[in-house]
C-alpha cells in the first residue's frame, strides 16, 4: 500500500487488534462519518460525541486531519482520519484498516461534492463510486452492520403534473438533461437503494430537504446571498427547508434505529419562495422567466456564485414539499427546529469545495 493510499489516523489506538463485534444491544455505537468537515458532518460528530450511547466516532475528512472538530477531543472517543474517497482502494484500506480496528458498526455517508459546477469522472467517482464501494465492502465487513446515506431532495422530479407533497415513491429526476450534480445524486441514491435487502447490511437512505446553511451545497442558500433575488414572474412555489440541527437529529435517529429503507427528511419551514426571500431580508424581484437563466449565468461568471437557475427552473415554478410521514412513523423524526431568519451567512464556518 502506498503512502498516499494509506489512511492517516491521528487518533491513538488505531492499530488496536480486531474487535469481534458483540450485538447491538451489548455495546454502544461505533460510528464512522464521512464528510466530517462539512458543517453538517461537524455537527453530527459533536452530537454523537455528546451521546453516551456512542462509544467511538471516526471522522473522515478530505482535508488534512482536523482536530478542530471538537475543542477538547477525547482520543478514545474520536479519531479523525484523512482519506480521499475517490479511489476504491483507499476506501478498502480505510474500512478494513482503522475502521475494522475500531470496530466501526455504522457508517454515515455524508460526503458529496457541493459545487454545482463540479463535473467530470473524478467528481463522479467521489459522488457515486465511493458510495458503491462502501456498500460493497461493508457487506463483507466483519463489524459494519448499518449504513446511513445522506441523499437529497434534488433526486426528486418536480413538475406541474406531479403531487406537491413528495412521498418516497415520487418519480426521480432521471432526465438526461439534468446536470451531473443532480445525476450523481440520483445514481448514488439508487445505488444505495439497490443494496437494500441484498445482505445482512442495513441500508438507510435519508432524502433531506435543502439545508439552508453555508457550506452544505445548498443552491437556495447561494441564491439568497444576493441582495436582490430574481424570481420568475407569476410563480411563487412552496418550498421546504431544513436546519442542520434537524438534519443532525434525523441522522442520529437513523443510527440508533433498526429499520432500513428510504425516508424523506423535511424541515420545519414550509413557505413560498417569496416568503423565504423576504424573511432573509432580501428584495425579491419578479422578472420574465426567460431572463432568469442568462442573468444568473452572468452572476455566476462575475461573482463565482454557485447557483444555477437551469438546475432549479422547475423548483422555481412548481411546488415540491417533502412528505415526512414515513420518517415520523418509523424513525420517530419530527422536524422541530425552524430556521432563525435571517440565516447568518457567517454563522457557520465555511467549508471546502468537497464534502469528504
Amino acid at each position, binding site marked *: 500500500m502506498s503512502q498516499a493510499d494509506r489512511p492517516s489516523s491521528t487518533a491513538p489506538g488505531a492499530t488496536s487488534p480486531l474487535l469481534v463485534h458483540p450485538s447491538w444491544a451489548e455495546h454502544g455505537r461505533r460510528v464512522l462519518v464521512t464528510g466530517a468537515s462539512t458543517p453538517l458532518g461537524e455537527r453530527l460528530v459533536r452530537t454523537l460525541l455528546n451521546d453516551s450511547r456512542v462509544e467511538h466516532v471516526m471522522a473522515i475528512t478530505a482535508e488534512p486531519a482536523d482536530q478542530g472538530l471538537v475543542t477538547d477531543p477525547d482520543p478514545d472517543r474520536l479519531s479523525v482520519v484523512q482519506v480521499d474517497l475517490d479511489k476504491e482502494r483507499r476506501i478498502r484500506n480505510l474500512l478494513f484498516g482503522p475502521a475494522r480496528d475500531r470496530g466501526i458498526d455504522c457508517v454515515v455517508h455524508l460526503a458529496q461534492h457541493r459545487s454545482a459546477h463540479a463535473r467530470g469522472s473524478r467528481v463522479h467517482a467521489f459522488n457515486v463510486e465511493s458510495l458503491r464501494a462502501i456498500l460493497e465492502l461493508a457487506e463483507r465487513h466483519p463489524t459494519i452492520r448499518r449504513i446511513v446515506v445522506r441523499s437529497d431532495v434534488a433526486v426528486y422530479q418536480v413538475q406541474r403534473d406531479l403531487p406537491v407533497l413528495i412521498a418516497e415513491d415520487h418519480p426521480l429526476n432521471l432526465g438526461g438533461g439534468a446536470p451531473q450534480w443532480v445525476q450523481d445524486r440520483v445514481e448514488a441514491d439508487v445505488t444505495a437503494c439497490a443494496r437494500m435487502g441484498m445482505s445482512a447490511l442495513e441500508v438507510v437512505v435519508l432524502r433531506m430537504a435543502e439545508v439552508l446553511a453555508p457550506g452544505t451545497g445548498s443552491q437556495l442558500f447561494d441564491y439568497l446571498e444576493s441582495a436582490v433575488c430574481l424570481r420568475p414572474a407569476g410563480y*411563487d412555489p412552496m418550498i421546504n427547508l431544513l436546519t442542520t440541527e434537524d438534519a443532525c437529529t434525523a441522522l442520529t435517529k437513523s443510527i440508533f434505529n433498526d429499520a432500513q429503507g428510504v425516508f424523506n427528511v423535511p424541515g420545519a419551514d414550509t413557505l413560498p419562495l417569496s416568503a423565504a426571500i423576504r424573511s432573509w431580508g432580501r428584495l425579491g424581484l419578479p422578472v420574465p422567466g426567460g431572463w432568469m437563466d442568462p442573468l444568473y449565468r452572468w452572476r455566476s461568471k462575475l461573482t463565482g456564485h454557485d447557483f444555477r437557475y437551469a438546475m432549479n427552473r422547475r423548483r422555481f415554478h412548481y411546488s415540491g*414539499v417533502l*412528505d415526512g410521514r414515513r420518517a415520523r412513523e418509523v424513525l420517530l423524526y419530527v422536524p422541530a427546529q425552524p430556521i432563525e431568519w435571517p440565516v447568518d451567512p457567517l454563522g457557520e464556518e465555511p467549508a471546502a469545495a468537497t464534502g469528504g
Partner: protein
Amino acid sequence: MAAPTPTSSLARLIASLGLPAAELERLGALHFRDAGHGFDPFGLSPDHVALGESVVLPLYERYFRVRSVGAHHIPRSGPAVIAANHSGNVPVDGMLIWTDVLRQTNPPRVVRPIADHFVPALPFIGTFFARGGMVGGSRGNAQTLLEAGELLLIFPEGTPGILKPFRERYQLRRFREGHAEMAIRHGAPIVPVGVVGGEEQLPALFLSRRLGKPFGVPAVPIPAVPLPLPVRYHLYYGEPIPVHERYRPEEADDPAVVRAVCAEVQAAVHALIQRGLRERPGVFS
C-alpha cells in the same frame, strides 16, 4: 418565524376593503393546516382566501346573481368530494362553487378545486388559485387532501366539459372515474352538483388549439361576445352519495364498483341539471 409576505399583507388589505367586517371575522374561524408560515403545504393562505372572496363576491352576488339550492348537503366536516358538471369556456363555475361553499358553510370550509395540469403552470393565475386552495390534478394531491379530511371539488368531465360547443350545452361528457375511486378508497361521500347557467355565459365561435399551445392549454375558445354574459347561475347540491357506507376502501380496486359509482354520480348530476333547467325562468333570471 418568517415575516408576513408582502402579498399576504396586500391580500389582507384588499380583502378588508372588499368584505364586511363580519365576514372577515367569520373567515377567521377558517380551519386550515398551517405549515408554519401562514400557508398550508399546497400554498393555501387564509389571507388569500379572504382576498379571493372579496374579488369574486361582486361577480357572485351582482353579476351572476348565484342562486344556491341544497347547500345543506355540503358536509360540515370530514373528507368529501363535490362532483359538478363543467361548462362555459372559462372556469367561472369553479370560482362560483368555491365562493358558494365558503359562504354556505359555518365555520367556513374552503373547497379544494382539483384543476387540470395546465392550470398550476399558468403564471399569476396558477399562483393566485393555489393561494385560494386549488391544487393540480394529480392523484397524490387528491389523496393527501382526502386523508387530511378536506373537501374536494372535482369536475369529472375534465377539460372536454368546459370546451363543449354551444349546441351541445348541458350534454354531459363522459365522467372520468378517478373521483369515484378516490371517494371509495378514502371513505368520502360524493356530493353531486348541477350547475345551470354556465353554458350560456360565453358562447364560442370556435376553439383554437394553436393559440392554446404557448400557454399549455388544450384550446382557447374564440368567443362570440367580448365578455361573459350576465347569465344567472344556479347551483344545485344533491343528496350526498354515501359511498363510504356502501363500500369498503379495498373495493376501490374493483373496476365494476368504481364504474357503477361513477355512473350514479353522473346520473345524479344530470338529474340536478334537468331540474335546474326546468326551474329557471330564463337564462338571465
